[in-house]
């Protein structure tokens, strides 16, 4: 399993252009957009957005694995994977763990930046934030893999990925407090916003770094449920996809 994690991590570092684009976007959002909006709203938007950017960056970085799995499935690379001296469960779990680590590695510098902007919390709080980020990374990896193996056509996959990106990022508390979304969204959209793991993690990080909104067990339960569900779904679908390609 260690070899799978190492392999996926090395592949991640090859996406340097994608990562450079992603980090530019995240930093531009925080250091330019948030600075200007702070002058236009009634609270310190720069501080509000810093934890949201951590969650959003981590989400995008963890989602990259979906593109790899989709490509492997289409190109028959799964046949090679089946020949490896590994149990399928080990292989699939290794990829989930690697996805979580990839997200975490991308998110840690942004978290440090958020701590510099806001405050340095206790060691326990830092550990809890890292754990929340890791759970989000693994859950997103599961979601990305589920999508990648369900939609084998590259066009369908990229379209679905973009739709999901838009919905999860804009229907979340990354950019605005959930109370504002409750005023403007109705029906399924507000439901998505409330159960969205990006909302949960953004607010958990805000809770630890800013003290508001307060961290509750319910938030942790929501995050665990999301990650558990998509780790299981992603693993199951991935094992079926690998077996079918044999």
């Amino acid at each position: 399993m260690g070899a799978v994690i190492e392999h996926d991590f090395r592949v991640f570092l090859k996406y340097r252009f994608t990562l450079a684009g992603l980090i530019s976007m995240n930093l531009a959002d925080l250091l330019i957009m948030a600075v200007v909006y702070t002058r236009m709203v009634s609270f310190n938007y720069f501080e509000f957005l810093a934890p949201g950017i951590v969650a959003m960056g981590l989400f995008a970085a963890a989602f990259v694995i979906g593109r790899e799995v989709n490509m492997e499935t289409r190109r028959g690379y799964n046949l090679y994977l089946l020949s490896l001296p590994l149990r399928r469960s080990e292989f699939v779990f290794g990829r989930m763990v690697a996805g979580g680590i990839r997200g975490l590695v991308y998110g840690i510098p942004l978290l440090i930046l958020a701590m510099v902007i806001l405050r340095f919390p206790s060691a326990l709080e830092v550990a809890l934030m890292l754990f929340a980020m890791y759970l989000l990374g693994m859950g997103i990896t599961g979601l990305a893999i589920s999508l990648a193996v369900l939609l084998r056509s590259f066009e369908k996959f990229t379209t679905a990925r973009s739709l999901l990106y838009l919905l999860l990022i804009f229907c979340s508390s990354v950019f605005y407090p959930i109370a504002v979304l409750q005023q403007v969204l109705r029906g399924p959209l507000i439901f998505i916003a409330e159960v969205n793991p990006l909302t949960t993690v953004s607010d958990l990080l805000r809770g630890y770094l800013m003290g508001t909104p307060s961290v509750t067990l319910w938030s942790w339960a929501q995050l665990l449920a999301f990650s558990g569900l998509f780790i299981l779904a992603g693993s199951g679908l991935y094992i079926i996809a690998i077996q079918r390609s044999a």
Partner: protein
Amino acid sequence: MRWFFAIVQIGIFGFAFSRLIIAMPDYYHYYAMGVIVMTMYSVAIFTGYEIYDEADDGYVEYLLSLPITRRELVLGRSLAGGLRSFIFMSPIIAGFLLLLGVFDPWKVLAALTALYGFAFGITGLSITLAVGLKSGSSFDIVMGALDAFIVRLSSALYPQAFMPGPIAALSGFNPLTYATDLFRWSLNYDVRYLANPYFAVLVLVIFLTTFNFAGVVIYERNLEGGTWK
């Protein structure tokens, strides 16, 4: 997808943010007009990627064999790129003008001219960069950085009046600032939050002339002797 992106931005981000903004009235329409021009930008910039694909597919040899001058080729592509972006966005623009109740033909004409001029210039910029940067990776990096910064360092999302000094100064060199403000001015948005429209026209004309001229010169030079490969 770009339509969907524009609709989600206007329908969710725009509505949510307009509840937070206290510094100006009617931020929602300000933002929606900015999103329309931003989407035009992202569609127009796509021509550069096509130039790389054409080089990969060996299509450039066919273009070189056509009985037209290189200058006509570049200018034709810029005009077509602008027109294509314009046609692509026209249902959203038409819907938006209807929602705003803008029926005055002169205002509509001024708004559409601002948008087309901008898309024409951006296509010229995209062609200039694509033929000027030999490697696809360099083009990707430049485009990624442009995407990240050109929008945020402009008045597409927020007026220059609220930008801190250095950001406001940089946005003053950004054609997106003038294209969005000119579009808003044509649609009667509050002029207190906009750049001077005459200056905006001047900047846009300089922008589209410069980049289309540079595109012609660089494209013409790089096409000869196979140096584009």
